């Protein structure tokens, strides 16, 4: 049985490689500075680096969906917004 039923495409493979790399980076980061860097951010709750990654990824998904639903393609603008959003989350949340 091959993998043809999974219908892989390069863009989706790249997406999963990106997510896997994010998780791997988190692992390396955790190894270099253990503890997850917990702190109280602007949401008023304690977050670790893993929480911040989750909030960034989930929020980015909604930024893309909102843009796609309201403005349509191309998706460069939401990509820029998502990157800024991710940086803000890692800096302040």
């Amino acid at each position, binding site marked *: 049985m091959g993998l043809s039923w*999974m*219908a892989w*495409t390069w863009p989706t493979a790249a997406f999963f490689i990106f997510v896997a790399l994010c998780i791997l980076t988190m692992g390396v980061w955790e190894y270099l500075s253990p503890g997850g860097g917990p702190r109280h951010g602007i*949401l008023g709750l304690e977050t670790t680096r893993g929480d911040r990654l989750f909030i960034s990824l989930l929020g980015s998904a909604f930024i893309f969906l909102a843009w796609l639903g309201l403005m349509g393609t191309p998706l460069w603008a939401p990509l820029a917004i998502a990157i800024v959003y991710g940086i803000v989350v890692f800096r302040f949340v």
Partner: protein
Amino acid sequence: MNKIENQKAWFFVLPVLALVAFNAIIPLMTVVNYSVQETFGDNTFFWAGVMWFEQVLTSERFHASLGRQMIFTFSILAIEIPLGVLIALTMPRKGPWVPVCLVLMALPLLIPWNVVGAMWNIFALPDIGLLGRTLNAIGFDYNFTRQPGDAWFTMILMDVWHWTSLVVLLAYAGLVSIPDAYYQAAKIDGAKPLAIFRYIQLPKMKRVLTIAILLRFMDSFMIYTEPFVLTGGGPGNSTTLLSIDLVKIALGQFDLGPAAAMSLIYFLIILAMSWVFYTVMMRNEAN
């Protein structure tokens, strides 16, 4: 004392990881792959980009079923949570009636979802069902197979009947964990029943109630079997909730691309809302 470095435990996690990969991660990846392609069967796929996502996000049909889903979920939460707390408060906390009440409350939870749907379908039929005939006999023009309002009434009543018990049992567990000393102190202070509820019982139930809300939210947001067996999504599309619509697109029309895109949007909504509930819960806990 030196801490012994031993990472062997990780190997014991491997079977779980393999299982989760097999039944959740790989299928989810496949859904992501399907969501950007078009297929006409025969395992042949054509690249479609984000077309399906755009189509789903701008489709009236998706907005309508999402709207119905929200109305359904928030209606049953608004009824089941207060009702569950009220029933739990009236249940005895000591004596021979405790097991009787608990068994009665647990009964609806033991019935399989499709059986609940079938039961309520027959129960509510206007010509032969007990509920349907009774309502018509006392002068209501009730027919859940023809009137959307009646279909909604029956669907919500069915969910309340099936799942309020869960809230009752959770709230009851919270209530029995309150030591008698709290009530004695309240009695000495001359607290009224309302004050006891507000300052003793409710704070002690907060944790279990958050779990109850989270569970009922997730379950009702993903509900399929009961409303499908009861109404089949009708009359018209009036009770077509998100999951029913999704199955219609995926299996009825065999539009795998749009169905995959819709599944992912659906999944993200559930993930985000569950995260919000969880965060609020943790925040209250910290305070």
